């Protein structure tokens, strides 16, 4: 009887909006495995991602905290972001993969596998975000990692294999640490919530966090921070990201690694809230800020030495991920707000840039920086879009990252003034490196085209994303701002 009601409850959860958001990609992945027609596959891919996004948009109006799924505002926000990114990238990948197939880098069976993996990865990420169970989140991330490793290995080049193995080893250790941390977190929660599912439920943990065993909570924090920090690409745990982004097929590195970063950072944010609420636990801010700063500084300086476009932007991703982590570590509603917004806007900008980079690499036939130049002169629209994206990522106005960096920097001055010095240094160095590379890529001597291009339609997603970055940064609608502020206030 009891079991039965549990089962029906779970089923009801599965057919609600959050459940469908998770189920649609998985169903699409299963279906796509059987679709042989490449064009149809691409359409289904795009349609499924769009459907997931539309369903995710309903999440803010259907908050649930059930046995399986959790759709609190934070999860809803991140799910909307992730599914939006999935949608734009799916549509971008339609034209992109066509060119890849034309260029002979992909064949039909592999394209089928690619589409299936895309949806599976998306589904795993959404599950990790929307699950109401610490262990399920971990499992979903593990699955997403495995999918990502497979997808990176898809091009079947030596580089791809090496990148995949590297990603597997480093992420495997990270996942192991996260798993142990998850176990210990449960252990910490047992005295407060008793043995059983509640001690693993994201929705129940925060309220009871004050009564957790502080020593266990500390232990769990260390392992979870390093475990999920690996997935968030924080220095010194970032080693897998540049390789996998450089070697993997571009839409995969745009969606999968980009969103895995976000999921991991959100977990770290939630964890921070737990430690804050417990009086006996250590202060979680400092280690998180230290990792964030290390990421920013190391990445900012090493940007100057990158010779591969995709690796360059992987470095920039790590730097900005570090900034977001730093903001989360800083704490307080204002910094958390800025961190969340930074995360979202950077994800959008990064996707736009990577889409442009993908198109440029296809045109150029190689991804060495020295081989790409004068985009603005030869391909005006592409060059302009890429330049806009890079300006945005450098933290210059009028794009939204300027706003978030303003908030983060001023928040740092307010709360931890001395840390503002390395933060500003890192941001300036990173911005400068970005400007330097912008000159080389968009201006500079033009390079001849050696491959087919994707055409203007493939740039539409990038335009949409950049427009969003512009609007959300400078003229965020009041209700959205209030919603986001509420999220930040609820998850300190």
């Amino acid at each position, binding site marked *: 009887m009891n079991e039965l009601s549990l089962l029906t409850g779970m089923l009801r959860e599965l057919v609600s909006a959050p459940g469908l958001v998770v189920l649609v990609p998985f169903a699409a992945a299963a279906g796509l495995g059987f679709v042989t027609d490449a064009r149809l596959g691409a359409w289904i891919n795009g349609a499924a991602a769009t459907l997931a996004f539309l369903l995710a948009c309903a999440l803010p109006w259907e908050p649930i905290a059930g046995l399986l799924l959790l759709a609190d505002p934070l999860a809803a926000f991140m799910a909307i972001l992730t599914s939006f990114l999935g949608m734009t990238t799916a549509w971008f990948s339609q034209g992109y993969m066509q060119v890849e197939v034309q260029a002979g880098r992909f064949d039909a069976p592999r394209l089928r596998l690619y589409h299936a993996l895309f949806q599976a990865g998306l589904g795993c990420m959404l599950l990790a975000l929307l699950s109401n169970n610490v262990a399920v989140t971990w499992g979903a991330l593990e699955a997403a990692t495995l999918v990502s490793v497979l997808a990176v290995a898809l091009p079947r080049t030596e580089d791809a294999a090496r990148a995949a193995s590297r990603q597997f080893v480093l992420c495997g250790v990270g996942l192991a640490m996260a798993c142990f941390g998850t176990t210990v977190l449960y252990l910490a929660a047992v005295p407060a919530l008793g043995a059983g599912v509640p001690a693993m439920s994201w929705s129940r943990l925060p309220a009871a966090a004050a009564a957790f065993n502080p020593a266990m909570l500390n232990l769990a924090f260390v392992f979870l921070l390093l475990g999920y920090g690996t997935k968030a690409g924080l220095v010194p745990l970032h080693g897998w990201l540049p390789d996998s982004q450089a070697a993997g097929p571009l839409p995969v590195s745009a969606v999968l690694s980009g969103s895995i970063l976000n999921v991991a950072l959100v977990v770290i944010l939630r964890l921070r809230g737990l430690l804050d609420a417990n009086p006996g636990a250590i202060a979680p801010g400092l280690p998180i800020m230290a990792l964030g700063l290390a990421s920013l500084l190391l990445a900012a300086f090493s940007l100057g*030495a990158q010779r591969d476009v995709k690796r360059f932007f992987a470095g920039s991703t790590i730097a900005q991920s570090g900034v977001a982590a730093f903001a989360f570590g800083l704490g307080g509603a204002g910094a958390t707000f800025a961190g969340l917004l930074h995360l979202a806007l950077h994800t959008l900008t990064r996707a736009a840039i990577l889409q442009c980079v993908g198109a440029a690499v296809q045109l150029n036939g190689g991804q060495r920086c020295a081989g790409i130049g004068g985009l603005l002169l030869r391909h005006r629209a592409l060059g302009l879009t890429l330049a806009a994206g890079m300006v945005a990522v450098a933290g210059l106005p009028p794009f939204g990252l300027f706003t978030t960096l303003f908030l983060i920097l001023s928040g740092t001055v307010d709360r931890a003034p001395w840390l503002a010095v390395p933060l500003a240094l890192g941001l300036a160095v990173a911005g400068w490196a970005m400007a330097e590379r912008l000159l080389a890529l968009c201006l500079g001597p033009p390079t001849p085209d050696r491959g087919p291009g994707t055409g203007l339609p493939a740039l539409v997603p990038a335009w949409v994303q950049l427009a969003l970055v512009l609007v959300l940064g400078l003229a965020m609608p009041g209700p959205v701002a209030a919603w986001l502020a509420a999220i930040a206030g609820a998850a300190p």
Partner: protein
Amino acid sequence: MAGVSAAVLTGFAVVVAALLGLGAASAVAPRRIAALGSLGACGVGFVLALAYLLAGAAPATLAVPLGLPGSWMTLALDGLSGFFLLVLSAVGAAAAAAALEADADATAPFLPVLLGAMALTLLAGDAFALVLGLELTSLAAGALVLMRHNDSAALLHIGVALPGAACLIAALALLAGGAGGDFRFAAIRAHPPEGWPAVFVLVLALLGAGAKAGLVPLHGWLARLLVAAPMHVSALMSGAMTKVALYVLVRLLFDLSGPAQPGWWGAPLLVLGAAGAVLGALRANMADDIKAVLAGATVGSVGLIVIGLGLALAARGADLSTLAALALGGAMLTALAHGLFGSLLFLGAGAVHQGAGSRSLVRLGGLIHRMPVTTAAVLVGAASLAALPPSAGFAGQWMLFQAVLGGPRIDGFGLQTLVCVVAGLLALSAALSAAAAVRLLGVAFLGRPRSPRASAAEEAGQTMRTILIALAVASGLVGLFPGGVLSLAEPALRRLVSAGMADRAGLLAVAPQADLPGYSALGIALILALSAGLVVWLVRARAVPGHRFGPVWDGGFGPPPAWLPFGDPLTQYGGASFAQPLQRVLGAALLRARETVDMPSPGETRPARIAVAMEDPAERALFGPLAALRPRLVVLADRCWLPGIRRTLAVVFAVLVFLLTVVAIVEQF
């Protein structure tokens, strides 16, 4: 009254929106509309600013639905921003009109963006709008140069702008922190900083705004950017962009930090300003490119203005508000004067470049014959640069001198000594500027052409001539009626140092103190005119009229060959030889100038040649090491970036064990 202010502010908001929109539109529409639209917008802005200042400049604020999430951006207008908007719109109108003359290229859309961004900075009523406008300014300025494929100048600019912005954000955050995190200026003003935060605000504001204004030692980028940019852009940057950055400095130090800051705040400004004034003027004497000469002069003028600001701060701290008003008024007058004559000179340099095909003093000369209007206009500008009465430059510097002379009234041995030294340096800078102005005019415009291209130079086009004449007339009017300009600055002075110049500055004369005689530009001009009339009358009455032309004795040089109709150009004094005395005495010490003289042995017919290489101390001591440090750090970071798998795992494990140990230790205590 308040209604006027609100209407003007709304008008300005519309103008800014129009300019930014124009930038976006002209990316696709015909590019000429960018210049035309900018001209119109600047015209409207000028009228609005003038009307606002004449109507008494009552403060007004306006909230617009943009800006930080969850809050509306505040635009504000008061006497200070109104005055600088006047400068901006005047200079902007000239630059936009000159842009009509320049060939429209891909950079065209950024001109209205630059103008709009600067206006936004001036209109900012909260910290976010201020930084947004300033960063947008930097971006647009960088883009305007970038598109000309001058990468290093633009990169250097961005490299200074980014840390500068970070400093400003930090300063504003410190200020806002005192006001409970409210970024609006009104709130900050109500809670001025005290103690250490105030000191940090001073340092950060100097670093941030100083970097954007080209204040020594952060001036290297400005000199390069001004040389690299197209002429109308250089004019705009020199005339307006540096002033906008100085406005930010004034806003932060005078307005937002509150009136209760100590007098020693002025000391760093005095030191940096004096250093900038001398170094800039000296650079202007050493450079060969006429734009580099003007860039040096720009750095010098920024230094002058900052001296005025420093004195005003020091005097305000000592409760000498009349002296503070004198100093601040002098700074603002100098800002307006340099805005006008600086852009005039840069546009003149552009006309020379177009007409004579070169900007190098080595290839110019004798342009007065072929480009009479340009020369006359540049003459007016150069007189201002040299601070000769009754030019605009003299009026500004006169006030600054008077403020310096009043400086010893501020107590404190250190400050009094500093003021005495600054007085000497101010005079040195003025004399050096005069030498630079004579050198620029004399070598480029007078004498004989040094290249065939210069001998066939063409006068600037009709539009350009009109702009030059208009700027010269405006500059002349400012010089003749400094009191009028000060009456426009009156609201700002009253607001910032709680004393004005109204009792001391009429249309006819400006005086340092209410009951004392002062400087009357009109009177000096009148006496000068009367004297000239007297001389002309005496000469007419006494001397033989008429004149004839003949060969001139040229120190022993033989008659020129037929293919050099103007004589061998190399027997003339050139830029390097003119500056040699200064270069040997000051240049060698301050700029590490080294000359290489190629002296022919007796009997050889080739000319002797002199070349001068110099090195700015700021580049040597500051930017050089930084530039050398970065690659090393980059190599280091790259080595740590992606170690092998095993080493990565080792680092991860080390971090894990470290954190665990820390946790274990913390738990034991």
